[in-house]
């Protein structure tokens, strides 16, 4: 368990985290990093204008993340306060925050004309690391904070991904998602 994303008292019961401030702070930090990455990618600098616009553009990510968590938590027989676990859950975004800052740094120094498919594909491929790390943190969150059995925690984390990522990708790519994915699916199927 990477200790950097969970506190030393990660096994503390969920009811200890009742301060909405924690969740709000995690949300604002996520939005700041999302907006800053957009600003660095689009202009090579951090400007208030682009940070705000980028944060608005990608506000659907935390919104869907929380929606998915709500759906997962509501499925449980045991009652768990959604508010109480929010801050702890959002702390599991830390791998993504590292990744976003890293790609922002890279794109801010690469000249626009030098941004080729190799760089874009490399960045996309590198997302596997924060994806796996964040998944592991979420499983640990469900076990430690929500007292779920490990197999159930894995199922919860996967269900959360299916709901959150499914809706997020559908929104992000819009109606073009079919024409974007169909050639890849056809290739996989050998057609």
């Amino acid at each position, binding site marked *: 368990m990477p200790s950097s994303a969970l506190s030393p008292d990660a096994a503390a019961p969920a009811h200890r985290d009742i301060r909405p401030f924690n969740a709000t702070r995690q949300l604002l930090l996520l939005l700041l990093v999302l907006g800053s990455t957009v600003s660095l990618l689009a202009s090579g600098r951090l400007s208030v204008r682009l940070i705000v616009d980028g944060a608005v553009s990608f506000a659907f990510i935390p919104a869907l993340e929380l929606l998915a968590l709500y759906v997962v938590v509501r499925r449980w027989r045991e009652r768990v306060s959604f508010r109480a676990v929010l801050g702890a859950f959002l702390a599991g975004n830390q791998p993504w925050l590292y990744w976003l800052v890293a790609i922002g740094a890279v794109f801010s120094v690469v000249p626009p004309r030098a*941004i080729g498919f190799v760089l874009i594909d490399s960045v996309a491929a590198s997302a596997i690391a924060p994806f796996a790390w964040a998944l592991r943190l979420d499983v640990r969150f469900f076990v430690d904070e929500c007292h779920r059995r490990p197999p159930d925690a894995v199922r919860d984390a996967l269900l959360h991904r299916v709901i959150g990522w499914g809706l997020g990708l559908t929104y992000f790519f819009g109606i073009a998602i079919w024409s974007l994915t169909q050639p890849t699916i056809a290739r996989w199927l050998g057609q």
Partner: protein
Amino acid sequence: MRRLRVTAWIATLLGIAAGTLADRPIVQPPLVLGGYRVLAADFHVHSSTWSDGALTPFGLVLEAERQGLDVIAITGHNQVSDSQAGRWFSERVGGPLVLTGEEIHTIGHHVIALGISRTIDFRLPVASQLDAIHEQGGVAIAAHPTPTYAPAFSGVLDRLDGAEICHPVIYAVDDGQQQLERFSAEGYFAAIGSSDFHGFSRLGLCRTYVFATDLTAAAVLDALRARRTVVYGLGGRAYGDPELIRLAESVPRLRTAASTDAPASSLDWLSRVAGVFGLASVVLTQRRWA
């Protein structure tokens, strides 16, 4: 730890302050050549609403202004609503001219439809799509017609008004420029330069200089139909109407303005270094939830 956290936030705010100070619009006086108003345009731009971009339609309008563009088309994937939102916003803030339109996005081909107000059914055959664009008084442009997408236009080349000859693919692929040149040689198209901006790279990285009678949507569409455009591609090579290219050559800033990767200023560097260091430190030192 507390001191490090404070330092991280100070660095982040310093980076944001420096970047915001450097974030100034490029203002150019109106240019008239050969009796035409020369407009810098980017006709292929994506917003974050349903079209895998990174900026809202409003943010695109402001960014276009920063990049010295007179005209943009926000081309949502198979929908026109975000171009209408962008136009509404730009009219209120005195921003660049926003053409309504979309990118018809299918498996075999992509078409930029400009000057339309209703979405074209992407399931139609390509010929019917092009006809539908023209029925609405619009202009049809072949988007990045590389060998992956070019074959779909076989037999309907005469129904296209323009073709992208400058697109980021010319920088990303070794023979990207040649691929687009080969397609353009197959018909009589307005030369188009578009950034296909999704949030990385730069808005206006590839741009079209439109020789229009006025700064209105109708005048821009008329100029495209009449092929009155000039585009600078890889290595600064000029494409478009030979007479207009000759006129454009008399204004060196058109060629240099086409470059959006001018050296970064000291404020830019301060923003990058302090901002990235600060953000990374903020993330590293954030308080845990408990």
